[in-house]
């Protein structure tokens, strides 16, 4: 046990209101492939960020063979994030070359032939064989990942290094996964340690020498190869979390169908049908890339669709036109507030009234300032924005929770028949979370049809009457009533049949 390349011990990390990591220990040995699994909110991301030095652990130590590591200087640890960090408009040769320090050579002409040879040699190390002179954007996703790994490994002088891969297979299909795994195995057999984070359990079972399962910030399982299988992993990840009786969502009997979606398709969605009734809150969840990120946007017309029909109260909504969707009675709270949800440079009041200015017009066609102010104050007060009467304040100056309330108020003012929300409490503190949930429940109780896309299982279980689970662009299961528990949801999300090779062609 002397050969640990990475030895993290008793790491704890608390954020206001959340204990993200609780006494977590993790050890990686030379030549070992360690899989780190766990559901959303289990603490995986936090652990990776602590290892990377992005977050400072509250207590515990992270050590590599070079001794205890200082913050922000973790020699021997290499991280490959999901977006890979490559520049798509450059070739493999150029991308690999970017990582090297140049010193005085910076203004000398590039040694093109030597660089090409070097890049080829690196790529071949991983059993890959593609043209290194081609733009990275023209490579397949697996090849791109290999370029990223090659760049990370370039210049390793010793093999006592650890490579951390964050969901490397999320964008890959069948044969591609195999190629990447072959490369990863080569890195491990050269004596490096690998940490791979993945939601795809079949791949974990196939590849990992050891698996560590996180749940609620704690290590709930640490098993060597042969002592785990797919079923035991699902049990460990899902646990028995939060399976107490639900309260909020049971009230009221849903009415007539308000939102009807038929065969909607987009690059991520394939033929999704769904119905939401008046007074009903329907949840949508799934893994990254399952299509759950696109569904609400596709219904609203924010994301281009390839096919499908959307109806509100039986009337068709023109696809791809948010303006028309709003007229039909829809509202949309996107997950990325600052990019899509609001105009940060405008005031809360201006954001609030933007979708419907006509009702504020004075005799000259102007916006009546006092009417606007009064109406803004009323709505901001209604959703509990603090400080009150701050409608003239710039949107960007409000806290995350208040910003979200303003965005919701903007749609409430339109008395929406259908409200679509994505990650409604993302980046919001616990108190604001509760009041936003309460608000959503009240909107539904008022007769609107509500669709909530979220990766937060707890949120879905407290809020929704029914939850749809997406996998590879399709609805693979629906949970409602007594079946709708957090562990059942987690199980349905991660236990969807892995279908490498099938589907995306």
């Amino acid at each position, binding site marked *: 046990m002397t050969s640990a390349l990475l030895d993290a011990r008793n790491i704890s990390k608390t954020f206001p209101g959340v204990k993200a990591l609780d006494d977590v220990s993790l050890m990686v040995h030379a030549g070992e492939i360690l899989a780190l699994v766990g559901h959303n909110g289990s603490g995986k991301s936090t652990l990776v960020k602590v290892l990377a030095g992005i977050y400072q652990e509250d207590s515990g130590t992270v050590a590599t063979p070079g001794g205890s590591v200082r913050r922000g200087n973790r020699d021997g640890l290499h991280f490959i994030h999901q977006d890979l960090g490559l520049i798509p408009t450059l070739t493999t040769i150029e991308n690999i070359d970017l990582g090297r320090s140049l010193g005085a050579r910076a203004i000398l002409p590039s040694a093109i032939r030597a660089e090409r040879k070097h890049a080829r040699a690196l790529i071949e190390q991983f059993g890959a064989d593609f043209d290194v002179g081609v733009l990275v954007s023209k490579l397949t996703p697996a090849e791109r990942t290999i370029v990223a790994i090659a760049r990370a490994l370039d210049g390793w002088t010793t093999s006592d290094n650890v490579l951390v891969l964050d969901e490397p297979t999320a964008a890959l299909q069948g044969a591609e996964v195999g190629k990447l795994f072959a490369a990863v195995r080569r890195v491990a057999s050269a004596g490096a340690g690998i940490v791979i984070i993945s939601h795809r359990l079949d791949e974990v079972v196939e590849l990992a020498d050891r698996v560590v399962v996180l749940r609620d910030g704690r290590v709930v399982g640490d098993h060597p190869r042969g002592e785990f299988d797919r079923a035991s992993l699902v049990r460990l990840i899902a646990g028995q979390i939060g399976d107490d009786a639900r309260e909020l969502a049971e009230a009221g009997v849903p009415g007539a169908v308000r939102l009807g979606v038929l065969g909607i398709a987009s690059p991520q969605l394939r033929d999704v049908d769904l119905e939401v009734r008046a007074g009903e809150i329907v949840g949508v969840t799934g893994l990254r890339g399952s299509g759950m990120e696109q569904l609400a946007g596709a219904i609203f017309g924010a994301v281009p669709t390839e096919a499908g029909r959307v109806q509100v109260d039986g009337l068709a909504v023109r696809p791809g036109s948010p303006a028309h969707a709003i007229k039909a009675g829809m509202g949309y709270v996107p997950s990325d507030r600052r990019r899509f*949800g609001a105009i*940060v440079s405008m005031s809360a009041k201006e954001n609030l009234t933007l979708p419907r200015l006509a009702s504020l017009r004075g005799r000259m066609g102007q916006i009546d300032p006092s009417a606007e102010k009064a109406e803004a104050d009323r709505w901001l007060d209604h959703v509990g924005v603090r400080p009150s009467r701050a409608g003239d304040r710039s949107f*960007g100056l409000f806290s995350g929770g208040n910003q979200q309330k303003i965005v919701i108020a903007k749609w409430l003012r339109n008395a929406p028949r259908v409200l679509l929300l994505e990650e409604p409490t993302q980046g919001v*503190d616990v108190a604001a979370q509760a009041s936003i949930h309460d608000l959503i429940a009240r909107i539904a109780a008022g007769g609107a049809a509500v669709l909530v896309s979220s990766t937060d299982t707890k949120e879905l279980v407290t809020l929704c009457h029914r939850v749809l689970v997406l996998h590879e662009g399709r609805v693979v299961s629906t949970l409602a009533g007594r079946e709708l528990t957090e562990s059942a949801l987690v199980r349905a999300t991660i236990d969807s049949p892995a279908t490498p090779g099938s589907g995306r062609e």
Partner: protein
Amino acid sequence: MSEHVDRSGWARARRYLGFRNISAIYIFVVIFAVFAIRIPSTFLASTTWRTLLDNQVITGITAIALIIPLAAGVFNLAIGLQVGAGSMFVAWLLVSHGVSIPAALAVTALSGILIGLISGWLIVKVRIDSFIATLGVSSLLAAFITGISGGEQILGVPDSYANFGVGNFGGITYSFVILMALALIVWYLLERTPSGRRVYATGGNIEAARLAGVNTTKVIFGSLVACGLLAAIAGMLVTARLGNADPTIGPSYLVPAFTAAFLGSTQFRGGRFNVWGTVLSVYVLAAGVKGLQLSGAPVWIPDVFNGASLLVAVGMAKYQGPSGDYYSIRRILRMRVRSVPSLEDGDG
């Protein structure tokens, strides 16, 4: 409305009167004081100020035209040549074709609208970046100007037309009245109507505006059409004031208009392009240039002054932050630092 006067009233007054909000006025006071002490006889003469007001009318209208697309998030680098084209086209109609004055005015105005539509089409439909699209348009306009004029001045504009350019009531020229009238109209449209709100929304965040139901295509077209119309009016006025049309005149308005628009955006409205800030900036810059000229500064000084002011204005706007208060950027940064854990831990 019972406005309670409390600390926030004071804070608001301080914000309105603070250097950050009305820096141009403070700069103006300094410029005025310096030159009033150094060269009182010429700088304080009433004719100096009357010509100053009148001389800046074209720059003023051009700058107002420019802020409409800028507010919608669209650059218009063709603005100088749009003025030049308007000037040349109206003279060409009047002189070379003997078209009547009202008809020439109407056709020139339509040509301005057409230029706006072409720019809008290139930006929205062909999806060329506004910077490049309007750069291309400006080159086409240069060709148009040279084409119809043969690269020569067009002289002999009808007297009744030229007389209007120098006419005045009681010392205030018609040109200045037109500038003020246009400023008032654009101010009203941008800041008091739903359409103006949509223009600012589009410029603030085009994707979020679209998702709030704003027809951003229409907004961009509309802003460029309005800009084209105003630029054509500026051009017609140039010809009336000079009594002829000069093929080289357009480009000289580009930098002053951008300078005034950007410096203006730092005034009053906290980082938003706005009419009165722009008009104020035009005159503050002109007063500075005038003072320098009257003190015998070399001829290249106005260009230095304009260029330096543009750079300073944009530099200031960068650090000003969305609410216009100096500390807002830091406040946002602090807020983001605090919210990072909860934001980033979402997919742990």
